[in-house]
């Protein structure tokens, strides 16, 4: 298929400096919050908060610094697919580790 892109793509779209600086500021603030939040005692939610903030930061980097926001949809599909398979690696491996202590038959 011909790849004549008449619409703006990541090469023709110019991101304003103010947006880049804004993202930078958000990332710096996010780092500060991550450190401060680690000192709060949230029990099991410490890791949730830490990963949530990291994911928000990461999303900003990917969307704006890496121009995914302005890239073809195919690129977005590819990125989401790889995250999905990474998640499969984590989740299915953990089915083993999480259930090892569960009861089995014959009372063992």
């Amino acid at each position, binding site marked *: *298929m*011909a790849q004549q892109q008449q619409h703006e793509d990541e090469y023709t779209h110019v991101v304003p400096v103010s947006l880049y600086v804004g993202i930078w500021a958000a990332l710096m603030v996010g780092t500060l919050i991550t450190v401060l939040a680690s000192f709060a005692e949230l029990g099991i939610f410490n890791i949730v908060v830490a990963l949530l903030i990291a994911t928000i930061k990461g999303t900003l980097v990917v969307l704006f610094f890496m121009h995914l926001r302005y890239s073809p949809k195919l690129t977005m599909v590819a990125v989401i697919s790889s995250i999905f*398979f990474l998640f499969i*690696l984590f989740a299915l*491996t953990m089915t083993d580790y999480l259930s090892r202590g569960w009861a*089995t038959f014959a009372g063992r």
Partner: protein
Amino acid sequence: MATAVQPVVERETYLNSDYGLKSWLLTKDHKRIALLYLMSITAMFWLGGFFAMLIRLELLTPAGDLVSSDTYNKLFTMHGITMVFFFLIPSVPAVIGNFVIPLMIGAKDLAFPRLNLLSWYLYMIGACMALYGFLFGGIDTGWTFYTPFSTSYSNTHVVTVAVGIFVVGFSSIFTGLNFIVTIHRMRAPGLTWSRLPLFCWSNYAASLIMVLGTPVIAITLLLVAFERLFHIGVFNPALGGDPLLFQHLFWFYSHPAVYIMILPGMGVISEVITCYSRKRAFGYEFVALASIAIAVLGFLVWAHHMFVAGISMYSALVFSLLTYFVAIPSAVKVFNWTATMYKGSVRYDTPMLYAWGFIGLFTLGGLTGVFLASIGVDVHVTDTYFVVAHFHYVMVGGMVLAYLAGLHFWWPKITGKMYPEPPAKLSALLVFVGFNLTFFPQFILGYMGMPRRYHAYPPEFQVLNVLSTAGASVLAVGYVLPMIYFLWSLRYGKDAGPNPWHAVGLEWMTPSPPPTHNFDETPVVTWEAYDYEHQPQEEITVGH
């Protein structure tokens, strides 16, 4: 303007466009790179076959009398590593895919020609490292590198070979990356996804696995190397490390890897069956989507290699269920191939003979895989010759036959020469008979309890082992013959012309062998895939 058969005298082809070693070793032409791979892969195939021969010779007698047990461990390890990483995984994609895919989509080359050449060099570097390890002491961990034996106890060249596999893994990753980008971005005008040949769909699906799965085994083998070199003991039980974590990471790649091996072969079969039935692929969309389904589902089932390793029973249940599902898209393909042949105008040329062999043997191998998916059965036959027979049915009966089918099918396009048909048919017969004689007895042996990876066995297993070794000899002859007549055909074969099989496909619309730039003009595709109804018996011409 018609691109008919051009005069043979002085026509520029990719073979005569430039001479000299440098023009081959520094080529960016996907067709030359495919031939470089053909030579390397053929050499590694014979090396793997050599190890197999020694294994089968040892197993002629119940006593471990030909080699010591340590040597035997090295033999099956090196056989497995050579065949899996240096033959099966690259074979169809790197040889046939590299050559044919740009032609099939009407492109001048792959998206990244220099990356393609780098892929071959990485293959060669990895192969040299593995060969060094093999020659100067060998490796005895099994191709599966299970810890803690590979990390803490083996005294063989684990690091060298592991790093060699790491390097060849990147060869595979870059090939897959190249294919994905090429198929997305370099198709000729009019060639929509729904007109794409099924060979491209299959290689695309395999490439997805190459790109997503191979990095995981890369880091895993690197960790094994780190543990041996720097004592970073991630898998060391003495430090609380879990050998099963190694297995999870290893099989996360190595199970999908078997689909990297078989999917391109299935792609070949789709092309061969449609051509020699002179019929459109039955259920084209289903076959295309089944390829993607195999790739996706293949990532969800890895721990069926670990049912008795010590994973939790509940996890095993999940993986067993998922494993049943992965059989479905493969079955969909088999049914569609069969339906394609029904009421087709079937010819019995050699590629078609291999395709029939594939369908029968892959089905048997695949079904025995379903047996193994059942935990109750697996507990009894795991680590026996039943498993060995299962994977050789799919890998050799399936994949190698598909590779041979593809080599025969596209040989005229690659070389411009026809191979001689009578010895080719004989070879196909020898391969089929030899294969079954070698591996069917192994199903019985495994069911009877003969364990794998043992160099000695109880005497009651000898008869079946002798049959198996005899079969291997026949199989070997079946492999040697094509080497001879293919080489013969380069000199004495009939000129092939652009489309000796009267097949439908862009690769058949350019001369044989093709010019360096593939097409004189970029083709514009206006027909559906496998449009045999509308194609006259003579070659059709390239449209504008």
